[in-house]
């Protein structure tokens, strides 16, 4: 060891530690996470409260399709955007401030640098996403119980899978956001594309030629999101397959992001 305490060569764990220090030392990280939980749980409480209030007047058909798990997890719709912002900012805030130059200079092995960012975001998104989904589920079920509507427990068939699936879904969106950040190198651009993917494109789904229709089976807010329901959906009998497809798509984009990140000047 030298006087500066340096190792004989830099390892992945060093890059990882640096990324974690960078992420945790930004106030915006914590604000965004607080926002994620406040908004996420808030929406879950509102959604289940509305559903619970309607239950007593519901028709038999509506009662048959009653999905207490699904309605408590609807907060994913907004949560995915907030998680996406975290993923985008990890990359684009460095481009916006010029910090990326410093990062690349201290970690010139660019695959290692980006991998450290990806792992950090994945860990944060997975922990935050899973916690949020469990909290939203618990809070939502408590609200339903208060309304006297049937509620679910984690032990019921398909419930744990739906809640955990929601966390995985949010993590995948965070990763998607990282790739968009790398590809566009601009916060506004990455966010616009993320909103397009999540909200806009599904709205035009009917206009797509049939050969791209299959993509919708794995599209974030389409097929992949059915993992968060417990009622069987005739279109998506195996929702984890759809979520897996989405992860595969994100993985492909991630490969493209690594290649671009390696090749481009900073």
């Amino acid at each position, binding site marked *: 060891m030298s006087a500066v305490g340096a*190792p004989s060569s830099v390892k992945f764990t*060093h890059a990882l530690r640096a990324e974690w*220090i*960078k992420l945790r030392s930004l*106030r915006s990280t914590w604000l965004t996470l607080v926002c994620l939980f406040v908004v996420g749980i808030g929406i879950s409480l509102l959604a289940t409260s509305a559903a619970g209030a309607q239950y007593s007047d519901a028709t038999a058909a509506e009662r048959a399709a009653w999905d207490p798990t699904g309605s408590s997890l609807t907060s994913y719709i907004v949560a995915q955007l907030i998680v996406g912002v975290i993923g985008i900012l990890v990359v684009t805030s460095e481009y916006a401030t010029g910090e990326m130059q*410093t990062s*690349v*200079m201290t970690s010139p092995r660019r695959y290692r640098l980006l991998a450290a960012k990806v792992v950090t975001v994945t860990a944060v998104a997975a922990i935050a996403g899973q916690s949020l989904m469990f909290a939203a589920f618990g809070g939502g079920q408590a609200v339903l119980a208060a309304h006297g509507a049937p509620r679910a427990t984690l032990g019921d068939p398909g419930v744990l899978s739906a809640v955990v699936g929601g966390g995985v879904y949010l993590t995948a969106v965070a990763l998607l956001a990282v790739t968009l950040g790398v590809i566009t190198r601009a916060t506004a651009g990455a966010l616009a594309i993320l909103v397009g993917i999540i909200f806009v494109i599904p709205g035009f789904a009917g206009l797509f030629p049939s050969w791209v229709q299959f993509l919708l089976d794995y599209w974030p807010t389409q097929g992949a999101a059915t993992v968060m329901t417990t009622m069987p959906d005739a279109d998506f009998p195996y929702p984890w397959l759809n979520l897996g497809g989405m992860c595969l798509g994100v993985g492909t984009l991630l490969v493209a992001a690594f290649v671009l990140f390696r090749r481009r000047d900073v």
Partner: protein
Amino acid sequence: MIRSMTTIDVRGLTKRYGPDTVVDDVSFTVEPGQVTGFLGPNGAGKSTILKMITGLAAPTRGSVTIGRRRYRDLPVPLTEVGALLDAGAVHGSRTAYQHLLALAASNGLARHRVDDVLTRAGMESVAGKRIGGFSLGMRQRLGIAAALLGEPKVLVFDEPVNGLDPEGIRWVRRLMRSLAGEGRAVLFSSHLMSEMAQTADHLVVIGRGRLIADTTVDEFVRSGGEETVLVRTSDPHFFAPRLVEAGGAVRDRYATSMVVSGMTPDEIGALAAHHDIVLSELTPQHASLEDVFMEMTRENIDYHGTVA
């Protein structure tokens, strides 16, 4: 003294941005143990070359090695090269301490190095403050502190004194001299000629992406033509013709002074005594670094200013 010496080797370096060749076949070496000044007019390509040295930009052709290794192959980059290219390239929401801590962690450096460099840069009192509130000069100091984290053998600074107060400028000058004195290789760019003249041992001058000069400062200044002598006397109009007769050339003749070339101060003094002329000043003058630089780069300036 540091144990091993390291040089920066720039060989046939070329960089194209689209159709523009902004760095064109540049080769030079930055030696350890001295300060190398990097000069060139705006847009000459200095920052681009520094980016290629530090692995931020990829050369279109040619190579840069640091101790015979490419930057990205350095096992612990911060212990080999410390660089400050853009003092603004930091996230303003972090504190100075957090910023340096992340840099140290990325290379596995000991945490105490952060305190060491904060002290060396005179920034202990603002360590816990957000960088966003820093003045340009404080950011510059932070960037220099970051460059020193790994006690690197090579230092690269792009306009390090930009924005510094006189005390800061003197600090940077002494720092660079002492880093070179410890056997490190120091390369820095600046547009301040007096700063260059006082700090650098060696000069690399580029213009429009091409190498113009690679020489010692003394050598460079001497190449700028003959030495002149400032002569002050009550009646230059009488003395000037005598000087010309003796083989000198006279220019810039004013009421009480003139500039003489082609004669040494001794010769001029003897000539004055011979004619019973009283001289109130007899000062040898060298072309300044600025004069020579302006002369050398005249044809290589992209952005000319005009005085309206």
